[in-house]
């Protein structure tokens, strides 16, 4: 397993948002976290990249073990240099062009030379079909284009895993398609991804593994084909049925 989290717990004030989550993602896998709103999916993903500090939990990543509730700054940084995160609201650097968004981390965080970073950056922009938009600022791009630049920014660092936090939820339906098709092609190339999404059809056709969450707990997880064809838990079956109907 590339990433294995055990017993992740998180509460805000008196509200237990995560009640001891176990989860694993293998190299080359596209894993999807499904579940109703308020299940704790986004919080889980943020805990997995230390944007939130968990109250408990252990993370094993690429052979190294990290204590999730008391990570040193150095460990967090070492871990983040091997991962990437795509946000629901894109969070492109507003004062940087598309290309600068992609190269910023390479140059500033990784100390790569500008010329080489730009070469890598352009390849990443090409990968998401936006090479021609290299000099556009975020406000000059549509939501779908912004999210594709954000994916290019994630790709450029050659991470071992990319976390996606509802990457299409802030987009109009017609812009959702372009982002999903980029993600689909990443999956085809064997990029390891952990995706929180509401796109059931995308989950069914693209992912290898499904983790179904509700009320801060994993209700059921397994191979996508198994979960979709014969879910073991009634709750999972009901959720998939309702959500599939909604999107058809």
């Amino acid at each position: 397993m590339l990433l294995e989290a055990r017993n992740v717990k998180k509460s805000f004030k008196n509200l237990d948002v995560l009640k001891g989550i176990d989860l694993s993602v293998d190299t080359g896998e596209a894993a999807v976290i499904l579940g109703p709103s308020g299940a704790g999916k986004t919080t889980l993903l943020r805990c997995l990249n230390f944007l939130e500090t968990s109250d408990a939990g252990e993370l094993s990543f690429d052979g190294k073990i990290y204590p999730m509730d008391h990570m040193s700054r150095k460990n967090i940084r070492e871990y983040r240099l091997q991962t990437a995160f795509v946000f629901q609201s894109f969070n492109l650097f507003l004062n940087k062009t598309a290309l600068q968004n992609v190269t910023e981390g390479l140059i500033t965080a990784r100390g790569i030379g500008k010329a080489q970073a730009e070469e890598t950056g352009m390849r990443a922009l090409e990968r998401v079909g936006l090479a021609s938009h290299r000099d556009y600022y975020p406000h000059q791009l549509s939501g779908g284009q912004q999210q594709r630049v954000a994916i290019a920014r994630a790709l450029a660092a050659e991470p071992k895993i990319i976390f996606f936090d509802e990457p299409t939820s802030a987009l109009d339906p017609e812009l959702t398609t372009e982002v999903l098709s980029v993600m689909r092609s990443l999956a085809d190339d064997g990029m390891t991804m952990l995706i929180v999404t509401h796109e059931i059809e995308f989950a069914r056709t693209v992912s290898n593994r499904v983790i179904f969450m509700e009320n801060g707990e994993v209700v059921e997880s397994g191979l996508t084909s198994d979960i979709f064809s014969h879910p073991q838990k009634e709750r999972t079956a009901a959720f998939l049925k309702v959500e599939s109907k909604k999107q058809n």
Partner: protein
Amino acid sequence: MGSNWLTLFLESFPKILIPGLTRTIPLAAVSFAIAMVIAVLTAMAQYAKIPVLTQIIRFYIWIFRGTPPLVQLFVVFYGLPRAGILIDPFPAAVIVFSLNEGAYSSEIVRAALESVPVGQMEAGYCVGMTYMQTMRRIILPQAMRTAFPSLSNSLIALVKNTSLAANITVTEMFMTTQRIVARTYEPLLLYLEVGLIYLMFSTLLTFLQSWGEKKLGAYMEKEA
């Protein structure tokens, strides 16, 4: 009478303008530069909520925003010698205007930092940057763009407020004008004249402000 006024106006113009260029402008420029350093550092410390330091900064801002700059000038120039600290007029004015302007600008910069979306910092972390790297490359440039118009206003106000330094014997524009008035007994003409020169300075700064806003704002301008 009319031609006398014109002659006096033309004769005194360079006499007032020159201390404007050698005293007023340098006083404002140096004070403002120091004030900006104070403002950015104190705003960043407050933004990061560094304990103790934040309280000290709040206290500093409270004092300097809550007392008149004229009183501050008198304390530093006429008061401190009683405690054995003697400071020349010009440096005394620089100290007061830097600290005074720094206190106001600190609040402007802090508000601007807080207006930058939280997601910008998170995105910085997620591409592997440290807090300080993200601050320097992403957050601060956006905040300074937001703060720019307010800070420009402060600079214009500061240029005008340097006239207070006349009270502690800095021979800047206003004091020079007072001296010419004492000699010629033409207060109306001469005070209007010095006002006109302040107006020229302010107008020039206003132009610089809109030029700077355009230049800084490339990434914020809405497309046509």
